[in-house]
């Protein structure tokens, strides 16, 4: 009974901002759930199971899905909670897919919800505590706490991003202006999408370059904001999909592959990842998901990409690792406009994580936006018809990569089963 074809039929968002102090966490989530169900013209009774996730450390609330049961619509329904750090949204999307694909009797329509209200908590505490265990171990091995914090503090998200930026610029010859160009494209796209956080329709490269460094070579103007927001997405089976949407987006491939922990290793020891730009996890994820979807030439077959890139250099790097551009050429494609909304391969038309980052929700928003582009309902819809699209996410110490491949056609049944 397994291996059921899965389709995305609806997606919903709440409005994102740096401080949504008008609602609490549960009400924030409820906005997205409502928006999603309204878009599918159904109510919560149509939902058989729920998958939820966020990064609990950022709000200071453990197991929040328990007390927000009623706001999620989960009363007397099955609920599973999946969290994997930054890629939480991607993992939630994949868990939702498996819930439908497994073919358990009685579980056909699944609601996936991911959220984050970062203004509730202290994001820097949340991020620095990723490595707290490792730092305390290194401290026990004799390194003074202060210098351990300084060295490994650079190993938190922005630190690793700057390691990646250095290595990427070193190998590809991409300049700081190229990074700024990526940011400008994202912020301008965000201005056309209703739910995004940083809307900057007139942002220019000069403005980015005028801001100070926060961690070389990343400047203040290039960095992702911290947002409050939630996203919900509705999955169902191929048979039921047409009841909810005219053009469903079929999920044809999913993968979440983790590589060794970048830079920091087990017990604060060395990691085997010499080049943080190498991203074997992303390459493996792409291989797995494309194989499931029957995609042999991703650079030609994929029409639209939503990649998870809080920092501009990562957008370039992921596009290459996911097989959409040749090695070390992604920044050239931004120069010639291939990735603009009217280009050959539009990237991050929603504005991307660079403009809106409600951490737990971000990766689910990537999948949801990719699905909406196929369904023709996106806020910043591209002019060309999108046949297949990808939604990507990363988490942990940039080692767990999630990838979802969507298409307007069901998967070709090639697997002997």
């Amino acid at each position, binding site marked *: 009974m397994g291996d059921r074809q899965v389709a995305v039929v609806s997606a919903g968002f709440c409005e994102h901002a740096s401080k949504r102090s008008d609602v609490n966490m549960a009400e924030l989530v409820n906005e997205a759930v409502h928006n999603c169900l309204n878009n599918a013209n159904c109510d919560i009774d149509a939902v058989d199971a729920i998958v939820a996730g966020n990064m609990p450390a950022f709000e200071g609330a453990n197991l929040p899905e328990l007390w927000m049961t009623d706001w999620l619509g989960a009363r007397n329904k099955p609920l599973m909670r999946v969290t994997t750090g930054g890629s939480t949204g991607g993992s939630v999307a994949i868990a939702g897919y498996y819930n439908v694909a497994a073919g358990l009797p009685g579980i056909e329509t699944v609601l996936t919800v991911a959220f984050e209200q970062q203004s509730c908590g202290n994001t820097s505490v949340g991020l620095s505590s990723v490595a*707290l265990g490792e730092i305390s171990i290194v401290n026990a091995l004799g390194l003074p706490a202060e210098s351990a914090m300084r060295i490994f503090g*650079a190993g938190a998200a922005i630190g690793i991003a*700057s390691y990646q930026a250095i290595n990427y610029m070193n190998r590809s010859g991409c300049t700081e202006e190229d990074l700024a160009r990526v940011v400008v494209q994202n912020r301008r796209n965000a201005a056309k999408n209703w739910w995004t956080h940083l809307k900057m329709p007139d942002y220019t490269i000069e403005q980015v370059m005028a801001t100070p460094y926060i961690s070389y070579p990343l400047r203040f103007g290039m960095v992702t904001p911290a947002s409050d927001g939630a996203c919900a997405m509705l999955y169902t089976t191929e048979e039921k999909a047409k009841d909810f949407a005219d053009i469903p987006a079929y999920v044809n491939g999913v993968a979440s592959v983790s590589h060794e922990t970048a830079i920091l290793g087990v*017990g604060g020891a060395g990691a085997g990842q010499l080049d943080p730009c190498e991203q074997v996890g992303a390459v493996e994820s792409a291989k797995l998901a494309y194989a499931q979807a029957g995609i042999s030439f991703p650079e030609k077959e994929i029409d639209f990409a939503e990649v998870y890139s809080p920092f501009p250099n990562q957008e370039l790097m992921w596009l290459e690792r996911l097989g959409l551009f040749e090695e070390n050429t992604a920044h050239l494609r931004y120069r010639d406009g291939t990735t603009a909304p009217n280009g050959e391969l539009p990237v991050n038309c929603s504005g991307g994580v660079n403009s809106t980052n409600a951490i737990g929700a971000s990766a689910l928003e990537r999948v949801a936006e990719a699905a909406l582009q196929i369904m023709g309902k996106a806020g910043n819809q591209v002019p060309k018809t999108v046949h297949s699209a990808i939604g990507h996410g990363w988490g942990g110490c940039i080692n767990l990569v999630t990838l979802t491949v969507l298409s307007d056609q069901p998967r070709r049944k090639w697997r002997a089963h």
Partner: protein
Amino acid sequence: MVRLEYIKKEYEKTRQMPGKWYLTSCRYKFNITRFQPFLSALKEKRLIGLKCRSCNTVSFPPKLVCGKCLTRPDQWVSLRETGIVATFTANYMKDETTGEANAFPVIAVRQDGADTTYLTQLNPKVKFEDVYVGMPVKIKWKDNTEGNLNDIDYYDCIDDPTQKMDSLTK
């Protein structure tokens, strides 16, 4: 869709609840016994790494589990004092007296003979603008070693033979 409607509302009645994550009450266990040979070697100003017998990966500082093979590496191998910069970055820290933001370079060193990197600090006299990926470095020991990670004072730059070759060809 009405944009940013919520900002216009008034929130006189919004109340914030205090909440704490008692992070300081968490402790982290670690097996120091298996690390002991490494620490003893540091006291003698020697560097050793752990080698996985299955995939021959040498980790420095030693890793207690080899993720590739899911085994426990148990062969100690000696390493040289030199290494190369695998990658680097700079943190900007505000000086409390002057208020200026100072660059604090952090480098990831791959020790010669090892396959993994170690996050550490560079000689404070070296400007971080001069650092590049692939730069050779050498360990600088503390005068009195005590058998812990702090015995490595910092890493110092050494002459790069490849740069000399470049200048010769020019």
